């Protein structure tokens, strides 16, 4: 029983990060049909800027805010300098642009920061808390709590504010949204900024557990993308569920099946789900009427 709890906490913690990355994918995808493969780099920026800012003597909360601000600026710049000029290009072209941007950001990070791994002390210390025989790092609660706040905040924003409705309208039908006066170009910029902020927050929260370096984004983007596909690309709820399920599958796979096949277990389940539900768990069936 303590093992199960240990595996669940471990899976939920890493799953929450996957979910945040998947949310970033979803937001941008909804506004533009683009899968932004630079999403992982926002996570990297969040972690790395915080590490270097705290090392320079800036207190942690300020450093975290600075990191989010840097990531948002980079996200907006990515939109303004790379996506906006290619407006009207096919989604595939835009996706390739984001892959290029991701490689570029990693290269710049390598020069601006360095190539080594870095750690950040846990926000509430590194001493584990014992819960029913499972040792849980206080940082896990930070990750889960932070993710929960982002999920709720995003939900309220999308459902309760006019701006949020505009984002949803753009996602539902861009042309119709434009016809009723939604500035879809602004919505797209907003999506990039928001995705960058969420990604950076994930990076800040997870760094005390997993360490960070200039290239941590690659794998997280891949896992986040898998989570978004599992949940159904385009559904924020799907992204959250997909991320948590992927994290749990990995932890339980490593704990109960075999650590050698833990990624295989996770991806097998994803394949099985997509095979029977090609739109993902929460995706909408795209039916076109003629």
């Amino acid at each position, binding site marked *: 029983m303590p093992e199960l709890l*240990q595996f669940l906490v471990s899976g939920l913690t890493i799953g929450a990060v996957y979910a945040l990355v998947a949310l970033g994918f979803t937001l941008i995808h909804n506004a533009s049909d683009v899968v932004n493969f630079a999403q992982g780099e926002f996570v990297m920026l969040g972690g790395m800027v915080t590490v270097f800012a705290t090392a320079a003597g800036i207190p942690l909360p300020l450093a975290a805010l600075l990191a989010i601000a840097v990531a948002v600026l980079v996200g907006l710049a990515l939109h303004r300098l790379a996506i906006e000029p290619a407006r009207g290009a096919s989604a595939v072209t835009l996706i390739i642009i984001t892959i290029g941007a991701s490689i570029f950001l990693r290269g710049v990070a390598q020069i601006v920061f360095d190539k080594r791994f870095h750690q950040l002390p846990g926000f509430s210390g590194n001493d*584990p808390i014992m819960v029913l025989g499972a040792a849980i790092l206080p940082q896990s609660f930070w990750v889960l709590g932070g993710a929960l706040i982002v999920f709720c905040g995003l939900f309220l924003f999308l459902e309760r504010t006019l701006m949020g409705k505009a984002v949803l309208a753009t996602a539902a039908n861009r042309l119709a949204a434009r016809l009723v006066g939604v500035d879809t170009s602004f919505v797209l910029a907003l999506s990039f900024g928001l995705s960058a902020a969420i990604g950076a927050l994930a990076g800040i929260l997870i760094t005390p557990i*997993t360490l960070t370096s200039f290239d941590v984004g690659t794998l997280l983007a891949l896992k986040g993308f898998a989570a978004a596909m599992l949940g159904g690309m385009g559904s924020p709820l799907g992204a959250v569920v997909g991320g948590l399920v992927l994290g749990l599958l990995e932890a339980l796979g490593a704990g109960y099946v075999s650590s050698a096949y833990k990624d295989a277990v996770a991806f097998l389940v994803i394949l099985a789900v997509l095979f029977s539900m090609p739109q993902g768990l929460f995706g909408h069936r795209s039916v076109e009427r003629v």
Partner: protein
Amino acid sequence: MSLGMILRRGVIAAGAFLLAAPALAQRAPEPIRIGAVLSVTGPASFLGDPEDKTLRLYVNRINQAGGVNGRPLQLIIYDDAGDANRARTFATRLVEDDRVVAMVGGTTTGTTLAMRPVFEDARIPFISLAGGIEIIDPVQPFTFKTPHTDRMACEKIFADIRARGLTRVGMISGTDGFGQSMRGQCVRVAGAAGITIVAEESYGPRDSDMTPQLTRLRNAQGIEAVVNPGFGQGPAIVTRGYHQLGIRLPLYQSHGVASREFINLATPAAAEGVRLPAAALLIAEQLPTSDPQHQVVLDYKAAFEREFNQPVSTFGGHAYDGLMILVEAMRRANSTDGTRLRDAIRATRGFVGTGGIVNMSATDHMGLDLSAFRMVEIRNGDWALLGN
């Protein structure tokens, strides 16, 4: 001016330059080209970065002191980012385009094995900086290595476990080349060392959480100690998880993490009591002055830390050993011919490096014995030399 004229002038200028180039080159002695393919970035940047810095630093120093046999050294370094495919491409480029006379580097066992055939075919000496024993066992005519092998690390660790009166060991290994190679060697020598391996787990080189695997190890029947073959940030995360779960069994890391960065990443509290076999360089100040390596390791450490303002690691030391063995061989052979150079490297006797005393032979292309390893324990965020 018409386009044609511009083009013609350009061609004439280029032609004149080409004619002038050999004349210029004749004045200064032609440099000796030494190649290096290192994993300066990527998951093995831990190792590749200090190697890169060390090679640049010492090639500069050697050139300032007049070079080798009256010729300066020219170092050509490529970064394979830990990717064996890229390493092989760069190796081919070093041989075919850059025409190097020798090669120092190959940061990981994976990249080294990918590059080895290129240098063997070209009959160019290749001194690898990677740990895997399969690099030199069986002996390849032109391939050497400077670091201790993972088999020696396993033997050293198992001897220490036995000395504590323990025999039942669990292993958690990285799935990268280093982790898998060392795991294989540990399994192979376990029986002879009187060790029983009771449980085995693994993790991916980029995994961010190992607590599920460690939980399984903790619950394994009769387990008395844990060995973690791996390098990079993986062992740091394993060590953190070990501390988080409050596992009290002795934890052994490999020589793959012998750098101060490991203690920082794992945090001193979690790393307390972790033991690992390491080269003398790690505990340079603690070596008695009577130790033959005392002066060499102190000099290298001082030079590296003054230049780069970052703590020395044994991996940079491997690069120092490789370069110095090569330079000494070039001086003895007074030649850059591949086969003669190889024979001279093979004839290395009593070379005192940062990794140990090197005695090469036709059947031993590494030249180190178990005495080159020192067992250290991490205490209060620092290394402590255990009585060997």
